[in-house]
């Protein structure tokens, strides 16, 4: 199609540029947004429609070793949700963990054009990038797991801070990652080496090291800030899912001492109550802390009722739950780097804890004063599929619908939350913030999440409907880098999407310091470890913050 396009008559929501539902033209030339295009350019009439930047998912699990293990694990889930091949699309299967092609197309269907895989051990980077190559339409990157890295922990333990920082930079380059991810910092060593135990507080000594989780958290928060990474350290806190864990979460956020940090699927980390007993909601306390601390951002990790698949570097948690559900369970350890647990799961309205988690997620969204720092995620597929986003948006925008749903679930749980007292209904502009502008800003993606001149022409056009779920369920038009992917609800073309990664500078001398550790403790050769650039295909090296 023509590379110059003008979108006319659409109601534009572009929070980054303070455009809130104004009818204005959007001009596109060669994949970018420009201020004007020739008069004879193709026009796209968006009358009665809403124009937004393409959606940006800041935290999901869509590619790599653990995701593929989950795919292989659940054939019974795929067969009820098939995705036939058509003129523009490869075939595939859906369910809670869709095949790669289907994942890309379904994100596009919802109007999403960027998604970040949130947990990849460095050794799994090649596999993840291979799956990215087969995940169409969306741009994507991944966060690399560094909080249980034996080599880095040894450097920390020996207080070799400069080498630690160099090694972190090397690892980001070697794996072609986008950001630093921490999962249950320090928890892998007791899990693998101490008969499946775990760490429970930030100041407890990690078995095998003269080191505490807090030291790891602090060091990696500092490293990501000092290296000027576009996205700060992305933390899955300790004690996920345990009653009383909100204290650990507050403790973790305080450890940042005012520096930028992102706490992920914070709903799973906002529980009061006594460990081992039923949780209660401390969402208001967590929301209040984030309101008062502009250095902290979070995504919610909303739980949605129905099928889910727990898929996390936090293996001890899945083992705990596996012993309740007795369903098929996967554990997958990666040498010197990470653990991983996978468990098919379902959230049910009548179960106290599930209903509480559902309500708490909504509390976190609605009690947060700054939507730019409390953005949307279901931690797909942990809290439910990303295909639930439209329903979640309706819950946030429509109090009547929200309360009606809340009254149909476990009332003991709802009574333990403030949900029914909350009057707030989000506006389309606020939805545009938590699904696009906010995540893009938190990720430091200057060319995404907005429609200003110079931005990538990743654009979604929805029919404006009163039923917000129906509206966000099927974008009318989706443009990726100026290419029309969905044309009047039909997939008209396909594209591969690009790999987003960072490459902070480091002193090459660090490699010779790391080599001996690899020779002793890894099972692959140091020289075969870094990802070859050919795995990047079409990539974007996202610059550090100035």
């Amino acid at each position, binding site marked *: 199609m023509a590379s110059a396009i003008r979108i006319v008559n659409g109601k534009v929501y572009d929070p980054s540029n303070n455009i809130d539902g104004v009818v204005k033209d959007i001009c596109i030339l060669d994949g970018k947004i420009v201020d004007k295009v020739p008069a004879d350019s193709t026009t796209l009439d968006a009358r009665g429609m809403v124009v937004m930047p393409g959606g940006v998912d800041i935290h999901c699990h869509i590619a790599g070793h653990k995701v593929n293990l989950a795919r292989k*694990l*659940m*054939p*019974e889930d795929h067969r009820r949700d098939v995705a036939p091949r058509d003129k523009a699309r490869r075939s595939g299967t859906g369910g809670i963990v869709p095949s790669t092609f289907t994942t890309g197309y379904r994100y596009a269907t919802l109007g999403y054009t960027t998604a970040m895989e949130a947990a990849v051990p460095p050794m799994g980077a090649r596999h993840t990038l291979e799956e990215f190559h087969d995940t169409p339409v969306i741009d994507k990157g991944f966060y690399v797991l560094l909080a249980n890295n034996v080599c880095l922990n040894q450097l920390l333990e020996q207080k070799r801070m400069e080498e630690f920082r160099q090694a972190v930079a090397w690892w980001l380059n070697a794996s072609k990652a986008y950001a630093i991810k921490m999962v249950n910092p320090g928890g892998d060593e007791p899990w693998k080496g101490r008969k499946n135990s775990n760490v429970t507080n930030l100041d407890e000594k990690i078995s095998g090291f003269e080191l505490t989780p807090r030291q790891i958290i602090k060091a990696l928060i500092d490293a990501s800030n000092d290296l000027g990474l576009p996205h700060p350290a992305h933390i899955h806190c300790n004690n996920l899912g345990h009653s009383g864990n909100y204290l650990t979460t507050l403790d973790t956020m305080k450890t940042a001492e005012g520096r930028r940090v992102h706490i992920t699927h914070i709903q799973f980390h906002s529980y009061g109550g006594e460990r081992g007993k039923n949780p209660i909601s401390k969402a208001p306390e967590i929301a209040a802390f984030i309101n008062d601390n502009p250095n902290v951002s979070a995504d919610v990790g909303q739980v949605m009722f129905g099928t889910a698949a727990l898929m996390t570097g936090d293996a001890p948690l899945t083992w705990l739950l596996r012993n309740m559900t007795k369903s098929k369970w996967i554990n997958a350890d990666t040498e010197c780097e990470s653990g991983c647990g996978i468990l098919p799961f379902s959230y049910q309205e009548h179960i106290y804890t599930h209903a509480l988690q559902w309500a708490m997620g909504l509390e976190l969204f609605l009690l947060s004063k700054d939507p730019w720092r409390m953005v949307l995620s279901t931690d797909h597929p942990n809290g439910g599929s990303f295909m639930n986003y439209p329903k979640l948006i309706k819950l946030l925008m429509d109090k009547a619908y929200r309360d009606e749903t809340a009254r149909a679930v476990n009332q003991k749980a709802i009574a333990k939350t403030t949900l029914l007292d909350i009057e707030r209904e989000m506006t389309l502009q606020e939805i545009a913030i938590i699904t696009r502008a906010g995540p893009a800003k938190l990720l430091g993606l200057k060319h995404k999440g907005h429609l200003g001149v110079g931005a990538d022409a990743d654009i979604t056009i929805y029919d404006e409907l009163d039923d917000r779920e129906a509206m966000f369920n099927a974008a009318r038009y989706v443009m990726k880098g100026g290419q029309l992917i969905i044309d009047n609800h039909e997939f008209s073309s396909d594209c591969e999407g690009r790999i987003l990664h960072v490459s902070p500078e480091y002193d090459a001398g660090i490699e010779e310091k790391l080599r001996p550790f690899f020779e002793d403790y890894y099972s692959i050769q140091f020289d075969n470890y870094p990802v070859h650039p050919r795995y990047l295909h079409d990539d974007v090296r996202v610059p550090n913050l100035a």
Partner: protein
Amino acid sequence: MKLRLHTQPEVPLEAETISPDQLAGKSEAEASALPLYHGKEQVALGDFFTVTGPMRNGAVEVEGDLSRVKLLGHAMSSGRLHIRGNVGAHLGAEMSGGEIAVDGDAGDWLGREMSGGRITVKGNAGHMVGGAVRGSAVGIQGGEIIVHGNAGNEIGHGMRRGLIAIGGDAGDFAGVNMKAGTVIVLGHLGIRPGAGMKRGSIVSGRNTELLPTFSYDCVYQPTFLRYYLFYLRRLGLAVENDYLSGPYQRWSGDGLEMNRGEILLYAGPH
């Protein structure tokens, strides 16, 4: 309504449209136009079958060597499907009601995941009779499957409810991982019956060695079994008199699960 196979398929023919639910109220022409899949090609029912209709009181007859034809009676909920000849895989899969009768042999996955109705096979059946698909823990959830001949491995895999009766011998892992329900095999059981079973009953007319996780309880004459066997006899299965009143060894298992399942082995004279 009568369907006669006039052309042998060269590759598997998927025919889930051949069921009373789908054919009800259709004229011969309409029925002949229904889609089937010959390998990757969509074809019309009439390309392979001569239809003489109409359908009366829900009865459909299919005639010919259908051993390459899959998914007949798929998900059927009512009516009668009579198959004169051998038939291929997935016959009556996911059916919820009605009746299927086969004069010849049936292929694998007979009555896979069915929830109601009855399937009777005069000849032999393949593997996974009333079973689950891979990855799923649940097989047949209700209804009856009666096979006069022999059946293959994994009959009643993941069974939750219903009755599976085999007049001849059954293969290995009969009733594996079953949760409830009844499996009766008048002939020999293969090895490892009831592996992983939680509840339910597996009965055999012949003695066999069980897994080390099954424990011997007693010899007795189970009354419920008498009723079941009379019922099967009424359905036309040849049940020896000895089995009706004879003594049975009772074993409990699987000890690795809840140990609430039972295996009954005929202990009388033959």
